[in-house]
Structures are given as structure tokens and as C-alpha cells.
């Protein structure tokens, strides 16, 4: 009688253990499929819905629009070619402005060796940034040192959000600090 009870208890524990293992395995699978960080960032074909959180209004910006050819676009950009990345803060310090006279929204990317490390939200005309956040995991790809990189500036229609066929690349010097 005692033996039978003991056996039953053992079977119960065995089933519980197997259930626990199954739950863990399912959990890991769900994490791997849905929550694991994905690969490098892709360039958006439409302007991000969210505007850049670090964007500031350009002081004393005239806002007089440039003349834009029919069906084309017209932008003005101001920038510095020095970019500094702070790995501990996960931020990039730079100067980039989309003056009010532009007719396009912009997204700026900081790229090293074709890897996008920083991608801003939408910068509307009249906005500038001096700080941008690194993309998730970008800090793992960098070590302190100096890099030749580039700013890639993508232009988007203010109304439709559609990406323009013209974009701009600006070579920059990037210094990465711990």
C-alpha cells in the first residue's frame, strides 16, 4: 500500500517536472521568436511617425521656404562633421539642423562601415539636434577610438511622408568614448 502511494507521488513529481521543463522550453521559444533583438536597422521608406525626441527649435530661424520645382524637392541642411559617441550614455553628440526654409522632413543616420548606429526620428523643418540616441545594441558594436563614418540624410515629403529619390551623404569623423 505504502509502495503504491510512494509510486504515485513519484509519478506526480515526474509529471510536474516535465511540465515545468515544457513551460521553460515554450517560454524560451516565444522569447527567441518574438522578443529577441533583430538585426541592423533598415532605412525607412516612409518618414517615422514619431518626431525626434531630442529635436530643438532652431533659434532665430527665418522659415522662409525655398522654391521647390514642380514634383521635386528643396532642402537646406546645416551640420558639423564632428560626431562624438558616448558608449556609457548610449548617445551621439553632433550638430545637425533642418532649417525652416526646407520643404522636406528629414531623418539623419550615423553610419560606420555601412552599419547604422544612430537613426533619428523625423526632423521637421525648423528643428535641430545636438544629441541622438544610439540604436539598441549599437554600443556593443563599437569600441573607443576614432572612425571614419558618414551622416546619411533621408528626405521625406512633409505631407505624404514618402521618401524622396534624392538623399545626401556627408563624410564625418566619429570619435567613440567609453
Amino acid at each position: 500500500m505504502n509502495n503504491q502511494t510512494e509510486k504515485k507521488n513519484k509519478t506526480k513529481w515526474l509529471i510536474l517536472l516535465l511540465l515545468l521543463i515544457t513551460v521553460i522550453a515554450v517560454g524560451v521559444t516565444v522569447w527567441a521568436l518574438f522578443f529577441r533583438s533583430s538585426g541592423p536597422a533598415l532605412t525607412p521608406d516612409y518618414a517615422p511617425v514619431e518626431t525626434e525626441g531630442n529635436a530643438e527649435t532652431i533659434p532665430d530661424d527665418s522659415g522662409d521656404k525655398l522654391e521647390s520645382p514642380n514634383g521635386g524637392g528643396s532642402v537646406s541642411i546645416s551640420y558639423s562633421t564632428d560626431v562624438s559617441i558616448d558608449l556609457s550614455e548610449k548617445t551621439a553628440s553632433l550638430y545637425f539642423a533642418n532649417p525652416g526654409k526646407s520643404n522636406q522632413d528629414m531623418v539623419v543616420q550615423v553610419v560606420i562601415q555601412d552599419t547604422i548606429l544612430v537613426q533619428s526620428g523625423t526632423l521637421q523643418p525648423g528643428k535641430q539636434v545636438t544629441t541622438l540616441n544610439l540604436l539598441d545594441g549599437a554600443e556593443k558594436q563599437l569600441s573607443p577610438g576614432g572612425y571614419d563614418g558618414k551622416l546619411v540624410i533621408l528626405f521625406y515629403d512633409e505631407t505624404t511622408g514618402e521618401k524622396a529619390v534624392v538623399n545626401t551623404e556627408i563624410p564625418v569623423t566619429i570619435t567613440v568614448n567609453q
Partner: protein
Amino acid sequence: MTHRKKKRLIRVGGLTLCLSILLSCLPIGAFAITADGLCDHHPEHTEECGYVAVTEGQPCTHEHTDDCYSIIQCVHKHNEDCKETCTHVCSEESDCITVKHNCHHSHDENCGYSEGVPASACTHECGEECAEGCIHEHDDTCGYAEEVDATPCNHVCSIEGGCYELVCSHAIAGQHDDTCGYVEGKAGQPCGYVCEECAASPEIPAEEEQPEPDEGNLVADTESDAEVKWGASIDKLTESGTLKAALAAAKDNSEIKYIQLQKSFATSSIINILGGEFTIDLGGCTLTGSSNPVIYINSSDAVVTFADSGTGGKIVNTTDAAFGAVKVQKGKAIFTGGSYEGSGAVYIEKDGTVEITGGIFTATNNRAVRNGGILNICGGTFTAGSNPYLSGVVCTSSGSITTITGGTYQEHPPIADVAVEYLTNIQYYGGTLYLQNYNGATPLTDLTISNFVNTFAVTDNLIQLPTGYEFYLNDDAEQNSVTELEKDKTYGIKYTGSESEIASVSITWGAMNFTYSDGTWNTETYTYDGAGWTAEGNTVTVENTGNVDITASVAYQNRSDFAFIATWDKETAPVPANSDPVTFTLDLIGKPKNELSDEIIGDVTVRIDQ
């Protein structure tokens, strides 16, 4: 085997099988990362990972023939004669084959050409002197010239002579085909996939990781017969033997205060110092190490003075490693003389203290002295390495305290005397001090300047901040810039970017609409009229609206393999400040492979260089 045992075995076996099946689902597998970024979690390169294998280019083997210099455009019109079978063959005679003649020959002495000169009449009019007959002889003034016959040019136009324009589609439009063997070379791209499990990352050059030195040995073996003498003082060197024996004696016996090298020797392993208060006198000898570092002080009880009672005593690290000749992990090192050489010369960790009153510290690639602890310099000669990203005569890092009251600093321009790596506290007492933020660290803070004699201006270059950085008083919440520093006040350093050049550019582009047409069949000429591309708004204009000279370049990239190519009227142009805008015009050549209907066929990239 009993029944119970059998049952237990079956259970264990079943459980093991179950675990094996479940664990095989986990995304761990083998953590094998190949050199090209592949691992179990990223077994194949994808579009997202950006990997592109290097493709070696192959030259086009197409050789121009006579056909490459001629255009075949049949002008024959079928008539009654060729109703049944047309016998027309295109030829130059029938004007179906036209050759673009583009002879650049200039007549020279070899071709024999000379222009003919028409005769001109003499303007002499007979007067009295010619009464008995004209005595005039033609001269320069009478204008008479005999007719000179022209001689023809004997130059014969040929393809080899470059007299015919190449109209080959291979050369003009780059329309390589399956037979010409052309393969465009492609630069490889590293795999951009970051595998969190394997911690693999794209190949971005990283600062060299330095291995921790071996701390296991009390005293590592040097060359077995390396000879030193040791004792209570330089005058009482009572013992002799190996450096290993001397260091062991000095650690255990506080009476041992002096170790003097007797000859130059080399070591391939780290010389650990784990205690004792003594002097290592180089005695004009050279200790050469191929370990990293050569001497490693790793005890808070250790106080080691490095001196050289002779001439030219040295500790040299022959490796490229950063820890250099002497690394102070814990304890204290005092340098009064001798030379210390390596990729870096002296490396101080946060629990280490170094005082330098003399000596020569030479880095070949790295920092002469890298301070992560406490560093006091009142003498010595320091030479920075040549690596612009690692150098600095003295480099100070987070939490370190550096006091500089003297010393001679020799830099590899434009490396600064002191590279301030992170948050750093520098006690500055005088002398010329140049600060360079290490790798552009921003912002630099907590520069405490005390005890200097005079108030001085930053513009005197006594303290030279990196470009774009300015001082402000730490107490000033608004961080107003200050140009004159006062005694016993603490300053922060802020990045203003004001000295960085800000460029401003306007870019305007047209609709960039391109329409391809096969043309209309002309029944009279039996040709297609109007075949090709028509463009609307096919220009990009770049205007420099700032004060920095720039160069603009344009490039077109097809979004798919449409089998036509783009040509620009120019691909790059300087756009100096205050100059007129520069316009680039894009045209397309060639017939698209597929039918297109209101599609975005490509992108234009405008590159702005300074």
C-alpha cells in the same frame, strides 16, 4: 537486474530522452562563430546583415572590330524589285553603314600637305625710268607672287590612328553581354548581424584588448643566469644571484633595500613584485622583456624605487602591448632615473601610485604614462607614441588624480601633453600644459586648478583646450564661458562646438521623371522615330549657403536591374563658399529590360565633402 532496477533505468532513460528533445529546441546550439560572422543563429547571410563577399573583377574581353566604328542604319526602301526576295545588303556604298569620322590629324611636316598660294599681280607702275623698257625687278614692295601649287596631305585615316569615332555599345554604354566575360569587381562588406548569444559583432576595429598579466608566480623566471646584487644599500650589496632570488628576498626581508643589475639580460615572462620596499638600480644595464608588462607591481605593500646609478640603464618592452615597461596595479612606484620604453612606458591602475622625479619615458605607439590612479610628476622626459587615437604624453582616465609640477614633454604633433580621457581631476601647478580630450571625450569636467601663482588667460595657450571646448566655473549654473582662470577655483569644461565648422548647403531637385519610348515606326524610313528616354526635371542643384568650402558629388543607383545606365553631365564639382550654385543633369541610356509603369527606378545620392 531486478524489476525495480529495470523500471528505474527505463525512467531515467525516458527522462534523459525527454530532456534531450526539449533542450534541442533551445537556441543555444554550438557557439561557433566563423570569421565571416556566421554562427548557428545566423547560418546564412541575408539582405539585412549586409554581408557581401568580395568579388574579383574580370576585364571585358570584347575587342573592337571595324563594326564598332560604324553605325548600321538601313536606308533601303523595299520596292517592286524586292517584293519576292530582297537582295539588298547594307554597305557603305548604299549609305546604310555610316562611319563617324572624327579625324584629329593636324597637318605637319610628315604629311606633306601645303596650301596653294594664288598668284598676285605686281603693283609696279612704269615711269620715266622704264622709257626704254621696264627695268623693274619684283621685290617685297611690289606685291608680286607666283602661283604655288598646293600639295595634298598624305595622311590616311584609319581606326588605329583614331580617326573614326568609336560607336561601340560595349564601350559607350558598358553593355557587357554573356560573351565578353566582364565581371564587375565588388568590395566585400562585413556581416552586420549581431548575435547576442555568441556576442559576435561586425568587424569594427577595436582598441587592443590587453591580457592581464600572469599573477600566479611569485617571481617569474628570467634568463636563468641573470645576475643582480642586493643588500641593505648601494654600499652594502652582500648577496648576488638572480633577479628572482633578489625580489623574493626583498619581499620577505625588510632589511633588503637595494637591488642592482649587474648586466643586461632579457626575460620572456612577467617579473612580478608582490611586496617589499626597495630600490631597483638599473646600474646602466638593460632589462629587455617580451612580456606585457615587463615588471608588474601588484601589492599595496610594495614601494619600489627605480633608479639608474650608471648611464643608459633601461627597461624595454619589445611587444606592442600597452602595459609597457612597468605596470603598477597596486602599491607605489617612484621613478628617479633610467629609461622606460615600450608601446606604452608606464601603466597605472586605480589602486596604483606613481611619483616621477626623473627618468625618460618613451612610448612608441601608446601613451608614455597612462594614469588610472594617482600620478605626481615633477620631472622626467616624456615622449608620446605615434598613434593619434591612443597617444598623449600623459593620459589620465576616469577617477584618476594627476599632479603635474614639472617635466619635459615631447609630443608627436598634434598630440597633446596630457590626454584627459574621462572625468579627471588634474592638479595643475605650473608649466605649460596642453590638454587634449582623449578621443573627443565630452564633456570634460572637474578640472581643478590650484596653487598656481598667477591668474592667466586661456588664450595664452598655457592651458589649451581642444577645439570646441570652453571653460566655465563649476558654480555657474548657466555655464557661461570664461577666458581667464582664477586661482583656487574649479572649472568645468563644456563642448560648445563653436569652433567646429558648421556647413550649410541647399539642395534642390526636379521631378526626376524619366519616360522611355520605343519610338514610332516610320513607314517611310522603316525606322523608329523618337526612341529612347525623355526627362523632366532631371537636375540636382547644390548651393553652398555657408562659409565652408565644399565639394558636391552625385551618384545614381538603380533600384533593380533595369539594364540601362545613368550618365551625369558631371559627377563632381567644387562649390566654394559664396559661389554660384552648381547644377548636375542626369540622363539615362539604354533600353529597360522590363516594361515599366510609373515606378521608382532609382535613387540619387548627393555627397558633400569638405
